[in-house]
């Protein structure tokens, strides 16, 4: 018994010698490396290739039973999603400099750095380029890296990631500030998605995009945005989009979300509302200003949901969900702001709102009471990255850096995983949630 007592005493003394708190903060930060590519190489680079795995997925798009998943700056994966529990890769469409897409009546419209290309998607295993509108876009951003065209050369930036670890005092809850990385004037092109009212068109058989799309279809028009303008294309002749107008919106244009006869434009400094009752000539109605941040928008009835995000090249210090009363579209009013962690895309299937929190997962909220959204969090899926979400009724499609997921959300408290396509990610996986 005496030995047991001594043993206990020894154990306590031994443990007591290590009574220093051990705390460390880990950060994944983004770095940019410039490179150049010839315009001719881009324009000659489109071709259909064999299916391949996801590596750096960007935006997703739903068309009929197909999923189109953008591979940032490389092209588009075409996936047969007839069986949602077992989606099947069909082909990979190589499009240099691609980040956005829209589809109507088997015509795929996609950006290729400065050009808008049209591809016939009637044979998904072998899409064919049928048209090209040259020099539409002057500059843009992919995953925080800027590109621009100078004469016959495109100057672009590759993105890489670095993990930093520092010791902390175990208590610091100050805002992190930006001294270790410095602010970068960049926008996001990572996608996020919304409900069917997203960029679905008014005519023909169109697909579904979401809250961070930069392409949208409405009536006989394809709308595309770059950093400062809205470009309109008449696609009455589907293979040969005709550029009909350009509307200057101001600097920092990020997303376009058509809803009924309005266009909602997400910018780095606010949300613009455009009257689109005449689809050939959208007119500015109002601007809801907010702190500088990246901000996709979705809308349901008289309420707009806007996420403001910092990090990833976005300026500002706000990470929040803004709920905005748009019953008067000429004077939108903030209803309430809710702090979030790092919100990206969002989708609404009223009364459910799905909100991507980047590396912090996907959250679901009941938004039936706009004053109590934070109190009505339905779920929080922490186990995967979440950057984009499309809600097709009770069918959720979610893309993150570690996979493409599909959920049955008929139980809004507990979405049921239907399938997963893994992603090879260049981002270090450091946080096991």
């Amino acid at each position, binding site marked *: 018994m005496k030995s047991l007592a001594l043993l206990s005493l020894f154990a306590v003394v031994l443990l007591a010698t290590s009574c220093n708190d051990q*705390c460390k903060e880990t950060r994944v930060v983004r770095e940019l490396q410039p490179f150049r590519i010839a315009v001719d190489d881009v324009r000659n680079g489109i071709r259909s290739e064999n299916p391949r795995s996801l590596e750096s997925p960007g935006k997703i798009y739903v068309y009929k039973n197909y999923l189109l998943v953008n591979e940032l700056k490389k092209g588009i994966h075409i996936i047969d999603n007839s069986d949602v529990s077992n989606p099947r890769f069909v082909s990979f469409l190589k499009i240099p400099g691609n980040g956005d897409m829209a589809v109507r009546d088997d015509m795929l419209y996609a950006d290729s750095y400065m050009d808008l290309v049209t591809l016939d998607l009637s044979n998904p295993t072998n899409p064919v380029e049928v048209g090209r509108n040259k020099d539409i876009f002057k500059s843009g951003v992919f995953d925080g890296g800027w590109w621009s065209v100078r004469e016959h050369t495109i100057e672009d930036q590759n993105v890489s990631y670095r993990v930093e670890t520092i010791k902390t005092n175990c208590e610091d809850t100050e805002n992190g500030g930006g001294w270790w990385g410095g602010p970068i004037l960049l926008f996001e092109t990572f996608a996020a998605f919304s409900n069917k009212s997203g960029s679905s068109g008014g005519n023909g058989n169109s697909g579904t995009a979401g809250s961070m799309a930069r392409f949208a279809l409405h009536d006989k028009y394809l709308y595309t945005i770059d950093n400062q303008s809205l470009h309109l294309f008449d696609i009455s002749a589907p293979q040969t989009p005709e550029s009909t107008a350009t509307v200057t919106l101001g600097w920092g244009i990020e997303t376009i979300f058509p809803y009924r006869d309005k266009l909602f434009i997400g910018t780095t400094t606010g949300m613009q509302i455009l009257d689109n009752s005449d689809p050939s000539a959208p007119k500015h109605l109002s601007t809801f200003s907010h702190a500088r941040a990246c901000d996709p928008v979705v809308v349901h009835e008289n309420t707009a949901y806007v996420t403001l995000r*910092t990090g990833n090249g976005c300026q500002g210090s706000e990470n929040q969900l803004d709920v905005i009363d748009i019953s008067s579209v000429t004077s939108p009013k903030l209803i309430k702001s809710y702090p979030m962690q790092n919100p990206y895309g969002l989708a609404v299937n009223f009364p459910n709102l799905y909100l991507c929190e980047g590396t912090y997962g996907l959250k679901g909220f009941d938004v039936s009471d706009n004053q109590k959204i934070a109190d009505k969090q339905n779920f929080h899926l922490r186990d995967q990255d979440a950057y984009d979400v499309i809600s097709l009724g009770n069918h959720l499609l979610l893309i993150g850096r570690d996979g493409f997921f599909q959920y049955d959300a008929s139980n809004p408290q507990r979405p049921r995983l239907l399938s997963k396509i893994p992603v090879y990610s260049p981002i270090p996986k450091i946080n096991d949630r």
Partner: protein
Amino acid sequence: MTGKLMRALLLGLFSLASFAVKSQDYVFKPIYVNHTETGVLFGRVGPLDNNVGVANKVNFTAQTFNGILVRPRLATGITLGVDWYNAVLINPVAAGIRYDIKRRQNTSFFATGDIGYGFTWFQKDNPRYETRGGWMLNPGFGFRMGSMGSTGFTMVFFYKMQKAKVDKPITGNMIERYEERTYNRIGVRLGISF
């Protein structure tokens, strides 16, 4: 994650309780044991990377152990507590034992051990911070003054390890930011037992 941990803890406690009932059939009548104590946690942190020196930490702790005497010297049960680590309020829920190493007429020398999970049920985070708890280990030894079968006073010296994790706001060109914390503390608790 939290649900799984709760289930694991409850399963462990159920096993201990089963053991207790089995033992009591042959050895004891069920004897309820309670230790309720409050005290302080002593620790240090640093030096840090940015030339910040070592700092001392003193924090409040309280807990209650409710169990059954399953052997002449051994009690098993559940320990519920509250620990305040300046920036985090943690509620440990643990499986616990109390073992009398030495007994005299009115005093006893005993070992304690608690292992479980610290929850952050009552933690109020600043906006955009999200604190989650983690595993907790709490061995120690103590003295009890008071005759057997009556209320006694206890003094316990212990070591406590508590894990926690905090998601922090992202700024600049970060895409992820979080802090992992391991609180390593020694401490002393005073209380009563019966």
